[in-house]
């Protein structure tokens, strides 16, 4: 008899739990329709609906992850937004979701983890950086940079060797966010990457490093055979604008390589916008090409315009 009672009790509890779950599902679904609505006239209802789902907290997380394979970009953004609002409470379930067989869900979970920035996700993210799907590698490495834990340095560095430009881009961005000194040579090399996203992201990341350390590393790259490495190195020196950077650029404003001459001249002009060093005349005399000259004059004019009060 006792056994039967326990069975009935268990059954009732199970039923209650199922019913509660079903009620929760209904609640999330109905709020989600509004939260992800894109119509102009319902826009005022969107934020309150997002907040209400976020307030449901952890129990809502599996239901949201289930929706992450949505085909709708708006729904996807809404889910990530809600997960971000739930914050660290969502992380344990999101970590288990990194093992989801659906790569689309995994890449989006990575994105959410990066937004939440909880360091408990770092090791699980490192564990999937060799995922066969490049989108996952891209998002995982990106998330590691967003979280900002130095434990991830080696994992991020491994991304520089990826075949896919987007993953190399993620490595460059995260290397900048984590300021991984060991990646500096890789970043400079990546200034010549065939994929512009990787190339330009490397440029942006290098700007985040300690200036003097970077300048020494750039000394040789100014004259690189890869024109992008050469041009972007000049531009970096122009941005750093230290005495050493200016000296390095000045050495090349009469280069027989007209391409390098132009890039060094532009960078030098940028490094000294008020011509405090008095190099401007030399630069203008050295530049013979009509359009190169126009580029430098345009740059000078842009600084002059900034000085004008009405501009």
């Amino acid at each position: 008899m006792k056994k039967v009672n326990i069975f009935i009790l268990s059954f009732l509890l199970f039923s209650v739990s199922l019913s509660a779950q079903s009620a929760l599902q209904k609640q999330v679904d109905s709020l989600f329709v509004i939260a992800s609505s894109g119509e102009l006239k319902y826009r005022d209802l969107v934020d309150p609906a997002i907040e209400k789902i976020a307030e449901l907290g952890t129990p809502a997380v599996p239901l949201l992850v289930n929706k992450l394979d949505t085909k709708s970009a708006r729904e996807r953004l809404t889910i990530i937004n809600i997960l971000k609002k739930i914050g660290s409470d969502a992380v344990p379930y999101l970590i288990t979701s990194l093992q989801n067989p659906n790569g689309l869900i995994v890449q989006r979970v990575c994105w959410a983890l990066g937004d939440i920035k909880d360091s408990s996700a770092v090791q699980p993210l490192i564990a999937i950086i060799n995922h066969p799907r490049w989108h996952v590698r891209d998002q995982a490495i990106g998330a590691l940079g967003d979280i900002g834990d130095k434990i991830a340095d080696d994992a991020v560095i491994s991304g520089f060797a990826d075949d896919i430009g987007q993953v190399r881009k993620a490595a460059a961005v995260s290397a900048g966010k984590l300021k991984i000194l060991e990646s500096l040579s890789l970043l400079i090399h990546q200034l010549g990457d065939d994929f512009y996203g990787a190339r330009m992201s490397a440029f942006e990341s290098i700007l985040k490093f300690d200036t003097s350390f970077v300048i020494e590393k750039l000394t040789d790259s100014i004259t690189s055979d890869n024109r992008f490495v050469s041009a972007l190195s000049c531009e970096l020196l122009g941005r750093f604008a230290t005495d050493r950077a200016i000296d390095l650029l000045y050495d090349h404003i009469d280069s027989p390589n007209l391409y390098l001459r132009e890039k060094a001249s532009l960078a030098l002009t940028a490094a000294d916008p008020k011509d405090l060093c008095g190099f401007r005349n030399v630069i203008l005399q050295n530049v013979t090409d009509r359009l190169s000259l126009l580029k430098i004059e345009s740059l000078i004019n842009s600084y002059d315009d900034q000085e004008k009060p009405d501009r």
Partner: protein
Amino acid sequence: MLKKTILLIAVLLTSVSAQQNTDKTPEQLGLEHLTDYLNLKPSDISFRPDYTEPDSFRLQVVSDLMTQPLGMIDYIDKLKNSYVKKQPELMAGYLFQDLNKAGNTGRTQAYYADISEIQQMYNLYYLNSSLNQLLTKAAMYIDVIFPKSIDKSLALLSKQEKEFLINEFKELLVSRVEDEFLSVEAMDSLEKVEEGYIEEFVKFGHKIDKDPILDAGINCLKELSVEIYNLRQQLRSKSVTAEKIISDVPFMPDNISFESYLGKQTGWRIGGTGNDYYSGDYKFILDFGGDDIYDLEYDPDNPHGVIIIDLSGNDSYRSQSDFTLGSGCLSVGILLDYAGNDRYDAKSFSIGSGFFGMGILYDAEGSDRYNGDTHVQGAGSFGLGLLIDEDGRDIYDAALYSQGFGFIEGYGAIFDIKGADSYYAGGKYKDILRYDDHYLSLSQGFGYGLRPYASGGIGAIVDIEGNDSYYSDIFAQAASYWWSLGVIYDSSGNDYYNCFQYGQGCGTHMTLGALIDDYGNDVYFGKGLMHGVGHDYSCGLILDRHGNDTYTAYDLSQGAGSANGTGVLIDNEGDDRYSVHSTKNTQGYGNPRRDFGSIGLFIDLGGKDQYQGLGKDNYYWKTNSKWGGGMDIELNPPDSTEEKK
């Protein structure tokens, strides 16, 4: 000797290099020059095919152009060069080539009919051999080749799946004015229903092979063109009159059934030179002249080919149902009008509409007026919709998905050769997602796919002469959405382009749009996402080669890349004026998404230009964005010695 050889080689290399440089178009030189200034290269403008899972509806042309979007310039130049006057069949054949699916190695041909298949069916009624040739060919296609070709196209589909095409699939393109009043729940429910249709369709849509029915339509057009030419030559030479052709018939007994006589069967009519009235669901009409009225119907549940040939007169064509007036619905519809100022008043899926088939309307002469609602005036879905108008001052008016519109595996195009034309698209179905006072257009050189389920098609307007006006609202004028291509090419005339948003060389969501205007002092006016803008792995390009042009926009325009897209504005010549309201995201601007930037390029290669915005005449600039900039230079500076004179 060695020195001489080295010198010779150096001279040769220099001359080859100079040759290569002069072979380049101004726009190529401009692109190379500006990208270099920004530490980019033209080939950076390229998109991967696998940002999302590729679907089975993607067109090879779109797929290829996504990997090198600047190839759109060459694509458009070839498209306009492919036009041959008075030979619409050549244009149809050319466009058919571009409907090849990605990865497809061969194209399926139309059903091949033996002439005996038709000769057994009919007796000759008329005595004129040219007329009989024309009727025989038409009958062969209408009775045998079209039905058997569509069977071939849909051979792998079940009966229910075939019915789905003209019911649920059609609904994906049909809008209702009342939708703007729905509640959020009702709207969501409606969206879910449509999503359900799409999911259902993608399960079997890949089994459709549109090629046989399109091939049949093109072959028919080729063969009819020859016979029509012969007949018209006879009439022109005055060796015979239309009256004589029609009246010259053998003696027929009173009790004979006309059903077995060519040209006299049900659904066929041959009209004389008077003003005739045609009403109903026809298969074939040949009208020799007069100001005729056509009230035409079509029943998609009983699809069939329709051929209408009107040799002259100011005619009025009126739809009594959808799928009329040069409309191919699960078949082929051909309307050829050779003269007169005509008026075409259609409902939807009409006036050069190919819906799982081919629809062509060819109007050779006269100032004409084209009115319609949805999927009209050169619109193709799993098919080819073509409207060719060779002369006159024409007016095109439609609401949605029209005027050079390409949906999934579709090519929709307008070729207008002469005359000051005006194109209007929109004003009926509100863009409830974004605005309460703007209307969707999705027209005028617009390609459209179902994101993220099915890649779209190609929409194009090619207008050769005349001062033309293009008016639209949201999504139009050389724009596209989701793995598609939207194109406008306007060769000459002082043209006016007005579009509120997403237009004039705009791509949104992994897709391509390009507007090229060769000559004339043109005006480009809009609010945002205009004048060369690409959003979300897309490329939008506007290229104006000559003339003193005026560009006005509010924001995110004039060479703007957004969410890893690329926007390019190139103006080769002329004293131009550029005006923008916001300097934060215009005239060479890119914004970051997915942790990296986009590309925005603004290029002006000549003339004394005026700017309201970031640009200046004779100036290079980099915007404070990721990543973009512009230049206004004199690519070919005036000869200073000439100036002194």
